[in-house]
Structures are given as structure tokens and as C-alpha cells.
């Protein structure tokens, strides 16, 4: 009783919490939920993303490995299709895609050493696919069927239509960030029963001004 009197003056606060919390939750739900509920809303939100800077951790699982092979690096993207895919460890290397051309560099004793271009066609296709995903175009590639699994987090599952492609990639699972609109949280590329790669993106920042040289020059200081 004493306590009730004593804390009466704070009752508005409790009442405020009781009424305010659900309101805030609804507001937050309205704000956050739904961005990944349909292809249209995903595309709408993703189209707002003009550039991305993020870190990633890649874990490769294979039957021949006792434990996953882990690589780390940074990912930069700028519309319409510029990508800088940079591994810091274990093997420092950079894949640059700009104006439809892919180039890979590996750190040598004297700096960045370019690799043979004709062997990068496959990687260029992959990077073009990642560029399409960052723009919300998950269902645009006719070689894959795309299924959206709504929820928190929402997930997109891509399955190759071509049986010959299925022998290389069984499916791709893309998990969208429930916290950050237009952002991808992780990608899982399943090659087979015991072989898959996961990419987890962290510290994603959107719409930063990224200089064009970042996608042309491996030695360009990264922001």
C-alpha cells in the first residue's frame, strides 16, 4: 500500500510503458516488417541502395576438410554493377568488376599481381549475379527458380533449372537482414550434401560515396 502511494507519481510512467510499448512495437514492426515480404517490396527497398560497404566471413565446408576453411575480407558495391571483393586473409587477393570486366589480383612480393583474364569469366558471372541480388533482382535470372520464404529473417532460395548446373550448385540460400532494409545478411551456396559455402556479411553500410578508382585500382586505399 505504502509502496503504491510512493510510486503513484510514477504511475503515468508505467501506464506510458504499458500503452507506449505496444505502440512502439507496432511502429517498429511497421518500419521493419514487410520489407522482405514480397518481391515488389524487396525490389523497392533494394533499389534505394546505391552503394554498399561491408565485411564478410566466408566458411567453406568440404568432405576433405576436418574443419571449415575460413576467409575474411571486405565487399564494396556501387550501382550499376561495380564490385570490389577483397580477401584480407588467408590469401590476400582482390577481384574487381567494373563496366562488365573482371580482374583478379593476388598480393605478390612486389605488390598486386594481375591474374589471367580469360579464367575469370565464371567469377564475372557470379559477381554480376551478386550485383543483381544487391538490387533486389533475385528472380531475374532465367537459369534459376526463385522462391521467397517470408519470415524473420526472410529467405530466398534459388534452384538451378538446368540439370547440368545442378551438378555444380544444388541451391543458393540468401538470408535477408531483418534489421537493415535492403541488406543481405548471409548467402549459402550448396554444392552437394557435404559441400557448401557460407558468406556472412557484417557492418554493412549503404549509400556511402565510393570513388570509382576503388573498382579499378587494387592499390586504392579502401575507405
Amino acid at each position, binding site marked *: 500500500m505504502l509502496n503504491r502511494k510512493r510510486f503513484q507519481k510514477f504511475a503515468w510512467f508505467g501506464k506510458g510503458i504499458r500503452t507506449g510499448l505496444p505502440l512502439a512495437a507496432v511502429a517498429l514492426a511497421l518500419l521493419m516488417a514487410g520489407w522482405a515480404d514480397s518481391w515488389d517490396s524487396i525490389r523497392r527497398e533494394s533499389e534505394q541502395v546505391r552503394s554498399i560497404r561491408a565485411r564478410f566471413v*566466408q*566458411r*567453406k*565446408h*568440404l568432405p*576433405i*576438410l*576436418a*574443419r*571449415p*576453411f*575460413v*576467409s575474411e575480407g571486405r565487399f564494396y558495391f556501387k550501382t550499376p554493377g561495380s564490385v570490389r*571483393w577483397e*580477401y584480407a586473409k*588467408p*590469401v590476400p*587477393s582482390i*577481384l574487381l568488376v567494373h563496366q562488365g570486366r573482371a580482374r*583478379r589480383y*593476388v598480393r605478390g612480393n612486389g605488390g598486386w*599481381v*594481375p*591474374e*589471367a583474364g580469360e*579464367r575469370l569469366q*565464371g*567469377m564475372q558471372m*557470379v559477381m554480376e549475379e551478386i550485383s543483381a541480388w544487391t538490387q533486389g533482382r533475385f528472380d531475374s535470372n532465367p537459369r534459376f527458380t526463385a522462391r521467397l520464404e517470408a519470415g524473420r529473417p526472410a529467405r530466398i532460395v534459388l534452384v538451378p533449372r538446368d540439370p547440368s548446373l545442378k551438378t*555444380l550448385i544444388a541451391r543458393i540460400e540468401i538470408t535477408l537482414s531483418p534489421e537493415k532494409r535492403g541488406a543481405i545478411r548471409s548467402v549459402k551456396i550448396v*554444392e552437394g550434401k557435404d*559441400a557448401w*559455402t557460407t558468406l556472412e556479411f557484417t557492418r554493412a553500410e549503404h549509400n556511402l560515396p565510393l570513388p570509382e578508382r576503388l573498382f579499378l585500382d587494387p592499390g586504392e586505399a579502401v575507405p
Partner: protein
Amino acid sequence: MKRGGPFFRILAAVLFLASCSGLPPLRPVGDPDLERTRQNCLLPFLKEETRLIHSLQARLPDGSGTSAIGITVADPAARTVRLTLMTLEGFVLFTARLDTERLEIERAVAPFTDEAFARSLLGDVTLCLFAPGASPETAGLDEKNRPACRYRQGSGTYTDVVLAGPGQWEIRLYREGTLARTVHATGLNEHGLPKKLELAGHGPFPYRLTLTLLSGGPVRLESRSDDLTPEEEDLP
């Protein structure tokens, strides 16, 4: 028989010399040095089933370069090699198993789909990892006065292992008296595995492979990923 003995020994020596006529001569050394040389010649090779992860840089006959990650599980006692090559981005290019001479390609994209190419690649891995024999046919000093062992592996095939300096070995493969491959092995990690292997393929299509050890050790000392926390997963 007794009278014929020296004749046959001389004939055998002549035939032996003829068969390795293209090989650089090895000068004999004293017995104590010989035993030490024989032991040191085996140092850069695997002693038991081992898992290795290398970064691999290839310099191809057209002068272009390309990189990959190589994962190998090799057992010198069983003479088996399992090899997976993947791009730096983690796309598997090639997975195969060599069981003595039997090659099984599990997964391959061109040019690894070609069996001769795949066999040659696994042959290079075998040259780098497996001792050419339990004991050399001869040991001595090479043309640069370095201790060396010579192993015979079938008709016309010889492998020299040269102690090229502290923590350095040179492995030379000769076929029909012609130098076919050279491997420079440098430094050993805590499990006695070379930290760097530089292989040169000689002949009409010369190439170079540089393998830098990212991680490696005996399979018996490993724990599977099921037992690991995420922090322990980090490699290398």
C-alpha cells in the same frame, strides 16, 4: 660362376651408367656422412597421413598466372592422395583421388576434366610429398658439392634429392635421362612439412607452381569441426 661374377658386375655397371647417362654424377662420400645424408634426404617428405592446405600460384606456358587453394590428404604408407583445388573464392575446380596408380576424378571443370592433365597434376603432388623410396640407390655429392641421394623408380626414372642448404632441398625428377621436374622445398613447419614448394615443369610446355603452406599436420592429431567452437574454426 665365380669367373663370370666380375664380368656381370661390370656389365651391370655399364648398363646402369648408360641408363643414367643424362644424369649429373654423384661423387661418393665417407660412410658416416652417407648415413646422415640418407636420413636428411627424407626430411621434406610426409611420414604419415597428413592434411595440407596450400595457396597455389601457377605460371603457365603462355606466361599467364593463376591462383587457387589446394587441399590435400596424403598417406605415404598407402600411397593414396586426395586432392581438391578451388578458386580463392571457394569454387571447387577439381576433386580427385589417386590410389597408387588408380585415378578417380570426382569433380572437375575444364581443363581438369582431361585425365592426362589430372594425372600429371597428381604426379606433381606425389613428387612433392612422397619420398621417392625408402633408401637411395646411391648417395654422394652433386656437381655443386652438395650432399644428394639418388632413387631409382622403374626403368629410366630417377629422382635426386639434394640437400641444398639449411632447411632447403632440391628434388629433381629425370625421365630417360632428361630433367622433367625440379622442386625446391624450403623451411619446415612444426610438423616437418615444407613451408614453401616451388615446382618447375621442364620440356616443351614449361610451367611453375608455387605452393605456400597455409596449414598442415598429421590427420591423427586433428579434431573434427563438430568438436570446435566458432573461434577455434579459424584457419589458418
